[in-house]
């Protein structure tokens, strides 16, 4: 089992992801440069947070045409696990690997804080070790996390159980007050229909060690390991 962390020009959470996989999770991991096209020996790909290409035009709009993204698309189509975090989520949306798009935060502020999330489904390779309805704490740090899709797409996401995380208060109530960015239906993370591609705005890699204030993110990495081991 090997993880890959894609490094775009302007990624800044790549080393955090690498550190957590290698030193906390204790699994093999390598960096994948954005001009690489070889993903042969990787089982789970992480598209990390950051500001690829300075967020010029729209976040993720330029990175989506990196050479590596053709390989990522092919990898996802073959059933490979792909997780996009923050800017990684934005890139997956721009690439069409996940439906919808990001708008500027409703408040126009860059939001950098811990939020509560409700785990809406455990039926994914990324959340199988959480409890359904579990309330977890993870940090967000973004200016464009206001998820949007049309009504038909939202209905499909709900019907297929593709909404993985929603912003909620500490008691699990999904309310407008608990929504840090104006995101549609309080969406914090979604997966594709095949359930092997996850995009999320919160940063699980920043809450996988007690010293950082929460270990709720570690469960996500452990879920991936469990799923990959069960598969092999």
């Amino acid at each position: 089992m090997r993880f890959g962390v894609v490094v775009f020009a302007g990624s800044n959470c790549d080393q955090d992801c690498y550190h957590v996989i290698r030193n906390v999770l204790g699994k093999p991991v390598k960096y994948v440069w954005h001009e690489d096209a070889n993903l042969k020996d990787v089982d789970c790909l992480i598209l990390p947070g950051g500001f690829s290409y300075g967020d010029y035009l729209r976040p993720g709009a330029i990175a989506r045409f990196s050479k590596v993204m053709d390989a990522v698309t092919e990898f996802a189509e073959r059933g490979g696990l792909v997780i996009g975090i923050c800017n990684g989520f934005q890139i997956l949306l721009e690439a069409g690997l996940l439906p919808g798009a990001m708008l500027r935060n409703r408040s126009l502020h860059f939001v950098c804080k811990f939020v509560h999330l409700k785990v809406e489904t455990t039926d994914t390779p990324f959340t199988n070790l959480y409890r359904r309805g579990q309330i977890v704490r993870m940090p967000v740090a973004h200016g464009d996390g206001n998820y949007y899709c049309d009504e038909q797409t939202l209905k499909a996401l709900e019907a297929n159980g593709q909404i993985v995380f929603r912003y909620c208060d500490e008691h699990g109530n999904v309310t407008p007050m608990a929504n840090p960015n104006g995101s549609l239906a309080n969406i914090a993370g979604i997966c594709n229909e095949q359930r092997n591609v996850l995009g999320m705005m919160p940063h699980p890699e920043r809450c996988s060690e007690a010293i950082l204030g929460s270990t709720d993110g570690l469960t996500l990495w452990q879920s991936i390991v469990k799923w990959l081991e069960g598969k092999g």
Partner: protein
Amino acid sequence: MKKAIVLIRLKPSLMDAQGAVIKRALLQLGYNSVTDVRVGKLIELTLDSEDGSEVTAMVREMCERLLANPVTEEYEVLVENTD
């Protein structure tokens, strides 16, 4: 040479947070007749071509592929001569 001007607007159905903030500021300045403000983007392209319809078609393709996001945005392409 042709110049293409691409206007990119947020879809009318979407709430424009920037526009709302600017509207509030304008009202504070006393421009009481302002009823709506929408903020978009303008992209100017200079193209080495003499064929206006070819330029229009190509720039529209650029919008579909990169310049605009069809989920949230609408675009308009205006082509003019550079001289």
